[in-house]
């Protein structure tokens, strides 16, 4: 038998009769990862492709929400066939995840009891976010607010780093 292994295709690999009479068909796509063939996974890597699934759903009109900001979350609530909007006001103490999985933790204190709700930013159940106040926060997660009681859980108003808001 001819020991020479087939080197490339097309043309037909040696020793492999193409009995069908049709030209070779190639499988393409990320599952057919071949370094020498241009296909979806080399044009766009798998992770980016997965993220692109939700591209159309990601909210583009979000206001800039920073840690420490006081915001209103307008949540749509469906009761039977009626829908109403409930507003949850609080301080943003954490932001986690990215893309479709991005979550925001909002903390408010009612009658000395802290309530934290975690919202998926891109959820269709949130009608809108409203930024009311910019708080001065020096870290990315304000979990220390959980240990504060009374006046000490207030954040100062932010005076620096507001260029993006003033349009300067």
């Amino acid at each position, binding site marked *: 038998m001819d020991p020479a292994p087939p080197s490339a295709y097309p043309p037909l690999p040696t*020793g492999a009769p*193409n009995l069908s009479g049709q030209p*070779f068909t190639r*499988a*393409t796509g990320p599952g057919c990862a071949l370094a020498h063939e241009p296909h979806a996974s080399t044009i766009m890597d*798998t992770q980016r492709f*997965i993220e692109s699934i939700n591209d159309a759903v990601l909210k583009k009109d979000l206001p800039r929400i920073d840690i420490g900001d006081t915001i209103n979350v307008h949540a749509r609530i469906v009761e039977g066939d009626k829908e109403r909007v409930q507003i949850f006001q609080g301080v943003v103490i954490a932001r986690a995840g990215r893309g*479709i999985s991005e979550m925001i933790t909002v903390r408010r204190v009612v009658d000395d009891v802290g309530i934290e709700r975690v919202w998926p930013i891109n959820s*269709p159940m949130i009608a809108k976010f409203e930024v009311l106040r910019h708080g001065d926060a020096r870290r990315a997660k304000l979990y220390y607010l959980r240990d504060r009681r009374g006046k000490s859980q207030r954040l100062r108003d932010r005076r620096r780093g507001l260029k993006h808001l003033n349009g300067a």
Partner: protein
Amino acid sequence: MSVGLLATKLGMTRVFSEAGESIPVTVLQVGPCFVTQLRTKEKDGYSAVQVGFGGMKARNSTIPQIGHDAKAGCAPLRHHREFRVDEKTVGGFTLGQELKLDTIADHKYVDVIGTSKGKGFQGTMKRHNFKGMPASRGVERKHRSPGSIGSLCSNRGYGGGLKKGKKMSGHMGAERVTVRSLDVIRVDAEKGVLLVKGPVPGANQGMVIVRPAIRLYRSKARKQAGKK
């Protein structure tokens, strides 16, 4: 049984339903698959459709394998699986025919078969969900042990040794796993991308088999019957 398709598990993400629920989904790149062989009763003793999937370099394949794929007019394919169908169904396929996602696109539920991630040698608590031993109350150095494994027991009811099939520690994972009745969340027939609800066995980039659900879970069967 119908002919399934081969797919690559790309990874997981989530999508939001119209009602606002967050649905965990696995992204599968399905096909393109090619019919590489038609098994018939008279020739092979059984009837089936062999499906090939995934390109590979010819130099990484073998000459017999290349020849096998070339008979169907295909470049070397990485994976081949057979689906047992009756003779009449086999007749509906032609050698080298391309199978795309649209052949299963109108199904609401699919089964996904894959090879689970290997876990190595594992104890009974992880492998068989045993409870282990108490944390205290006189238990020493035996907290994760299986306890008594019985004695003087045979499969006929009496005799020496252990009962066959006794659950013990050993190799876990890296075996064929079928998840049944997964909800089809979205189908992009053009790109061959299928989103199914929930996880699927195996690592990302692994090969899985997708087939129309053979036997639905009772709750889903009821749901489907109710909607129709």
